[in-house]
């Protein structure tokens, strides 16, 4: 399904993605970020697909202990996948050949947008939730010790190629680049899930966020 676009790119998140959280940009940077945002919004055609399946679909699947903890107490999983579309990738490639500052700003703007598109789809999923059912937050393959290879199973179950033009490469990366997938657990009782946290993160010793006393989760 097609997802609607926000009017603008959230500036605070954009600056955070550019490693400049809380900074008040100068006039030139402000203009650059405006331009980048407008270009990305013009090129994006966000689409998403989702599907709820019994938890048993993950049986025999290597999902890692973090995702298993996230799904504790759940009896179903909801897979969702969102992409901004191939035209955003094409825009980013063009900008990288033209102006690397604009390209980096647009790349970050697209990352902001993919998160807001995922929020929008999650909103729809929650709106369609039957009374008495509860969902955890989103958990994306690749975080913590959950392997990226879970993307293969997830995208196959959602038929993302047909539903959204989103495919998985042999190395389990999502293509188009500006795409995201997530797993939410479902249960009859309120569940919140558990964030991946930093314990199993590869970057736990070098993470730029942790150095500043925050985490990538915001």
């Amino acid at each position, binding site marked *: 399904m*097609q997802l609607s676009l926000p009017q603008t790119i959230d500036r605070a998140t954009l600056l955070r993605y*550019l*490693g*400049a959280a809380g*900074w008040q*940009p*100068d006039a*030139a*940077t402000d203009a*650059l*970020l405006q331009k980048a945002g407008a270009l990305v919004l013009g090129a994006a*055609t966000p*689409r998403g697909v989702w599907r709820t*399946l019994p938890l048993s*679909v993950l049986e025999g699947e290597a999902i890692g202990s973090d995702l298993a903890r996230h799904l504790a107490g759940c009896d179903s999983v909801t897979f969702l996948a969102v992409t901004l*579309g*191939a*035209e955003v*990738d*094409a825009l*980013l*490639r*063009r900008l*990288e*050949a*033209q*102006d*690397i*500052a*604009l*390209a*980096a*700003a647009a*790349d970050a703007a697209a990352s902001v947008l993919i998160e807001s598109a995922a929020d929008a789809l999650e909103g729809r999923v929650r709106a*369609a939730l039957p009374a008495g059912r509860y969902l955890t937050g989103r958990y994306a393959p*690749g975080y913590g010790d959950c392997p*990226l*290879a879970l993307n293969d199973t997830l995208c196959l179950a959602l038929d993302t*190629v*047909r539903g*959204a*033009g989103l*495919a*998985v*490469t*042999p*190395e*389990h*990366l999502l*293509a*188009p*680049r500006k795409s995201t997938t997530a797993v939410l657990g479902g249960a009859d009782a309120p569940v919140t899930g558990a964030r991946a946290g930093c314990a199993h993160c*590869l*970057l736990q*010793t*070098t993470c730029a966020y942790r150095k500043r006393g925050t985490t990538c989760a915001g």
Partner: protein
Amino acid sequence: MPDKLQTALDRSAFLFLDGAMGTELQKRGLQLGQKHELAAFFMPDTLTAIHADYAAAGADILIANTFGANPKKLAGTGYTLEETVAASLACARAAAEKTGALVALDIGPLGELLAPAGTLAFEDACAQFAQIVKAGAAGADLVFIETMTDLYELKAALLAAKENCRLPVFASMSFEARGRTFTGCTVESFAVTAAGLGADAVGINCSLGPAEILPFAKRLCRSVPAGLPVFVKPNAGLPNPDGSYDLTPQKFAEEMKDFAAIGVSMLGGCCGTGPESIRLLRQAYRGLVPAQKVPVRRSALCTPVRFVEVEGITVVGERINPTGKKRLQQALRAGDMAYACAQAVQQAEAGAEVLDVNAGLPGIDEAATLERLVKELQAVTDLPLQLDSSDPAALSRALRVYNGKPIVNSVNGEQKVLDAILPLCKKYGAAVVGLTLDENGIPKTAAGRVAVARRIVEAANRAGIPNEDIYIDCLTLTASAEQAAAGETLAALAACKRELGVRTVLGVSNISFGLPCRGYLNTAFLTMAMQAGLDLAIMNPNTPEMMAAVRAYRVLTCQDAQSAAYIAAYAGMQVQSQAVPVPAAAPAPARPGAETPAPDPLYDAVRKGLKAEAKTAAAAALAAGQAPLDLVNASLIPALDAVGEGFEKGTVFLPQLLQAATAAQSAFEAIKAALARSGAPSAGKGRIVLATVKGDIHDIGKNIVRVVLENYGYDVLDLGRDVAPEAVVDAVRRTGAPLVGLSALMTTTVPSMQATIGALRAAGLDCKVMVGGAVLTPAYAEQIGADFYARDAKASADIAKQVLGG
């Protein structure tokens, strides 16, 4: 050929395709987790019964359950592609025999995205499709390629089908409500590309219901030749939240009736339709015959997202041609495609609508380079390309990998040239430029050139290329050498349009060769040629006065309604250009010493990240006689160092660092051009090879590093992304680069980084390796055998300085 197939191809009666397979299988017991494509093994009777029900409902063509029978989907199932295709076709055939229906080998998307969006190479996609076609050709009556959303993948499938069987090939894409596919492909780009590649029927399926597809089907009918059949296979309306579809079979058949009058000749259903939908559809069409299609005859070139109708003057950017361009020669010799890509984007911004691409340079492999240029350029621009070569091998390779409908530049009146190149244009559906010269040279008179043109047009027509795809070049001769020739060229051009009914093209800038202030002559000649009927002007779109002539001409000939494009280009601007004497070379000013700091506009512009100012400052310094290398060492590098230090301290933020890098880059282009003109090979600080490793498509970090390293004066050979270890080894061996930079963003691609380092070591190459990317750490870098871990672009420049000096 079976009668039904004849009917399908000659459009003499309506033919009916079947309905959905997936939804029918689910209805009849397919379990969650069971793969559709294996139905022939675990529920063969059900599968045959579905086909039989469609046949009984009146389907003339049964589409076998081979949609997902491809290597990716069958991996790990225990069934080979060959046995899956054969078993699936057998079920359809068993059902077809009862009614005499035709059986189609169904081919769907491979489930992976082709490069540049994904990592599947075009040739590999062709090979996978060829395997499917070979597995199924003997058991099928036709090949049915459907639900494609990427024109490039459709091309791979069409070529594979055409090259590996003699069956008719039907080709269908799925469009979203906006009239484009997921990848942005337009209906018209699909139409002219598929028709050009020899599809025997074209259609639209899935994604939307009949009412939504109707306007797109009309456009498809108008965009393909009158004799080419068009089919539709819509869904049963739009999906409901529970996964069902909103049209009943009755309502579906009712809505489908609107296709009878527009020229469609085959109809069926996709998701949500069943045998009853087909039965009622057939009933609704009783007594009707297909309407005549009335195609628009138009000259068109395209990429998936850009359909360029050549109607009125169209600008072809000439800058990607190494002849006389030292900087591009250097780049192509080094195997560096980034410079050509930047030229492409710049020309597009300046107003080019098509880009000429030429790789003819002594000492390089033209065929390999042209193919690579086409792949790289179509990743960064959506403008159609003019493939500029006279070498059939180079053209063949470039045509094969081009995504859309290109134009070939060129053939001429020589029979052996026509014989070698026209069949290539026909096979790949390209338009063609014909130069009015032959083995006897260029005819002096207009009449002589028209005679050559006539021969070319006849030969092209015989090869199956229609007039709207033929562009005659009456050849621009240099006015300084043959002054009277300009008139003959224009007279010939007008006569070709009038008498032959073809399009025309000229390389405009050649008129002024050897004369001063060439822009004046080029602009005047361009204007005269446009008035004589020029369609394609091959020119430098970066020359403001020539683009102004084009835009003004469009206003004065009412092609630019309300002068909207002219106003958009020039509102708020004023003209300042006039000829001024060339300044005599000034003596180089002494560099200011530390004790007498003088204003340095280049340093300031880079520090502040001002792109235009940096370029102007560099050009001014060079014009004043300053040595290019002094500029790099005394202004650029100190400015970049200052910004880099600020970044490390946290007083400068990433966007500012990158704006400074972009400003330095624009200054550096002026410097490199000056170096190339002086014959110096480069800034001479040493070579670095960069690559994003095999399997990884996230390369913005690597691209930032490239810009920064180039700004420090290093010669960077950027191999791109998804680069195989062997390609890195080759590049290092060829260039002798002492430093290699590798990037990988994801955990799953770090092993390929390790493999690349291993390959470099195994080849015994004496180079250092620096690595970077989100998931890397200093310890991880050491573990996989890298010499350096580069935290960011600034760190990579520090490492380069340590390894190469500078």
